[in-house]
């Protein structure tokens, strides 16, 4: 991955330093990872649907940050530790190993934060970065609109300059943490008569606690909550909310998506999601019964399971190959741009398969005591669409690879 500007000034750590750091992190997480609460633990930040889940995860993120295992590679002057990115990778790795709950403030940590560090002013960094890490300031994202899901460039929410302020009118959808967030990264149209749809957009770091912003929860296909619709009615936000120049909104938004798609470094790190992975799928295949025998003894199940494991290993290996220059010399952007497509589609099919291998028990619903693992896999499968649809649908991702990697025509 290309390094963000500020990282390259940080010295390369020695093996010993890294090992010591890992030992410290490992010990800390072993000691501090909380035991599972009696409510359902969200596996991604998009699954936070109740106040108790939200509070629990806020407190946990703050604790991890204060222990020094979040934002370790972000600059010290803004609240990070100024360490090499490797340290944060190790910390994240240890979180996963110790089955830590997720880091809640994903939009702040992985989208807004890197963007502000990359493009923001000194004042913006001072104002926002520390609160992102400590979870004092929860961030949400306002890109998608009801009529413009995949076609972000067509966003119609209006921003009008009025004195020193901007006045916002319109509607956003799929706002994660919409009811909890203090700030939103907002894409809105400030120049309606620009020469093309992209040139009319501007990008804002908008406060959510101003009059005229209302949120309404959306019930997901799982039956749970986790997103809101967000309505703007003459909502007045200060002039300095503008990120970059007026009319640069599309460029800034695309840059933000690059952080999200992991095509650009600079994220705060931290565990963003917990996916029931292949090891658990194998374990499940041992426990699940089909026709009175463990599913793992069924040759057809074994074949399919191995197929998915090969594909899982593909995604692991592709992520690693992406940073080996001689092995990506001819198409350096191919693996980064295809990454989301590969991983999210695999995850969806893995979860789907995990239900099917349960045979009759696949009939039970989410949370059902009769279901294997209380319907964990049923829930994971239905939730997995959030990743194949959100952040650019698989079909849009496919178009991106087609056009930007293979050079196929857009029209």
């Amino acid at each position, binding site marked *: 991955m290309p390094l963000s500007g500020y990282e390259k000034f940080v010295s390369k750590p020695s093996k010993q330093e890294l090992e010591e750091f890992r030992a410290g992190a490992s010990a800390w997480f072993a000691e501090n990872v909380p035991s599972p609460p009696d409510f359902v633990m969200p596996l991604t930040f998009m699954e936070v649907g109740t106040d108790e889940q939200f509070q629990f995860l806020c407190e946990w993120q703050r604790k991890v940050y204060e222990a020094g295992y979040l934002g370790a590679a972000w600059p010290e002057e803004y609240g990070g530790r100024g360490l090499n990115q490797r340290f944060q990778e190790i910390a994240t*790795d240890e979180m*996963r*190993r110790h089955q830590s709950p997720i880091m809640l403030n994903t939009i702040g940590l992985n989208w807004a934060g890197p963007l502000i560090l990359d493009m923001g002013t000194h004042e913006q960094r001072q104002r926002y970065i520390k609160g992102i890490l400590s979870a004092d300031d929860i961030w949400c994202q306002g890109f998608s609109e009801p009529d413009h899901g995949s076609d972000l460039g067509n966003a119609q929410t209006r921003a009008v300059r009025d004195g020193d302020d901007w006045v916002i009118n319109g509607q956003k959808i799929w706002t994660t943490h919409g009811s909890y967030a203090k700030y939103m990264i907002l894409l809105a149209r400030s120049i309606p008569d620009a020469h093309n749809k992209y040139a009319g957009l501007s990008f804002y770091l908008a406060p959510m606690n101003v009059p005229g912003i209302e949120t309404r929860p959306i019930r997901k296909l799982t039956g749970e909550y986790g997103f809101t619709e967000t309505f703007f009615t003459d909502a007045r936000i200060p002039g300095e909310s503008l990120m970059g120049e007026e009319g640069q909104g599309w460029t800034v938004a695309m840059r933000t998506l690059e952080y999200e798609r992991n095509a650009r470094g600079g994220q705060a790190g931290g565990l963003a999601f917990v996916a029931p*992975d*292949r*090891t658990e799928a*194998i*374990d499940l*295949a041992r426990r699940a019964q089909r026709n009175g025998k463990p599913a*793992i003894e069924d040759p057809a199940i*074994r*074949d399919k*399971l*191995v*197929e998915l*494991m*090969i*594909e899982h*290993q*593909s*995604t*692991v*290996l*592709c992520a*690693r*190959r992406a940073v*080996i220059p*001689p*092995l990506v010399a001819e198409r350096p952007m*191919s*693996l980064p741009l*295809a990454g989301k*497509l*590969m991983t999210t589609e695999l995850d969806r099919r893995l979860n789907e398969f995990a239900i099917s291998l349960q045979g009759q028990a696949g009939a039970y619903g989410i949370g059902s005591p009769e279901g294997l693992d209380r319907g964990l896999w049923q829930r994971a499968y239905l939730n997995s669409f959030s990743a194949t649809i959100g952040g650019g649908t698989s*079909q849009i991702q*496919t*178009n991106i*690879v*087609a056009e930007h*990697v*293979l*050079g*196929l*025509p*857009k*029209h």
Partner: protein
Amino acid sequence: MRERHGPIGCSHEQADLLESATRFCEDKSPIAKVRGLLEDEIGYDLDVFAEMGDLGWLGVAIPEAYGGAGLDLAEVVPLAEQMGRRLMSGPFVPTTLAGQLLLGAGTKAQKQSLLPALAGGEPATVALAEPAGNFDLAQISCRAERHGESLRLSGTKCLVLDAPVANWLIASVSLEGSVALVLLDADQIRQAGPVREKVIDETRRSFRLCLDGLEVPGSALLDPVATLDALREVELAGGLLSAADMCGAGASCVAYTVSYLTTRKQFGRLIGSYQGLKHPTVEAHVRMEQARSHVYAAAHTFGKGAQGEIAVRMAKAQTGPALAFAADRSIQFHGGFGFTYECDAQLYRRRALWGESQYGDAVHQRRLLADLMLSGNLFAEGARGGHFL
């Protein structure tokens, strides 16, 4: 073997060989050349093969003591990949496999007498397959019987690549109930009367050998103690090089499809703008990218016990179907032209059919992988969430 860390990596030598092989194969094997060789009796360009010998390609994975470069099969992988990319065939892979098999099971005298010439570019081959079609190379019906100091052979070997040009070959036979490997020199190969087989991939030259009545000296027997391991290893080496070959072919197959999709118009639009063609082409590309990751991972971990074996089998299981898909869609997306012999898509499709048939197809690999990965404790607590294996 040199120390290699992690599941995937690229040595300096690999990177250098990849770069030079990319240029060499592109230069030496334009598509007109490939087409010209389809009808050729020998099936490859002797001068180009001699140049590969001069470049040291045949000696890459041969120890320096025998005149090679002392590298590993990992460094052969980029060569096989780039040859596959330009639809090259010929004795490079069979010679490499013969060398590896001799290294694994040959006696010191056999290695000393044969490997230096092989490392310099003298072709050899292996005769391991039989008409029964067992992917398990230890299931053999050809026989050897002791007759005083010599061995009398019988049975039929098939799918022996480039037999008539080989200076020697290694054949697998059953001797006193065990698998044995014997050397045949050029005269003995001739005596076995190689008969050309009609194979689906017309860039290959494949032969059937009748061993009946052949008599070889006892000194032609490879070390019986090392034989089974060497045979297992060469099956994996064959799988890896076949996967590398198909991986290269897949990259150019996708490029070939893309070039048609970006020039051919129907209903006033470039056909590549239709998502019905665009999206499967991306799928082919992504599957080939995944295959390439597996191939270089398998190269990197080759010879490393269960991890190495799993990596090779995954590479083979991923690559064959990926190339098959890429080529199958390429034929379809070329429309009427795709149905003609003139369209190159068929060359790729045929190559995939050949590659799948060699050293275990995807179904076979997955069955072995299931035994390797689902039975034991490989994914126990220690491996969870961390590195694979």
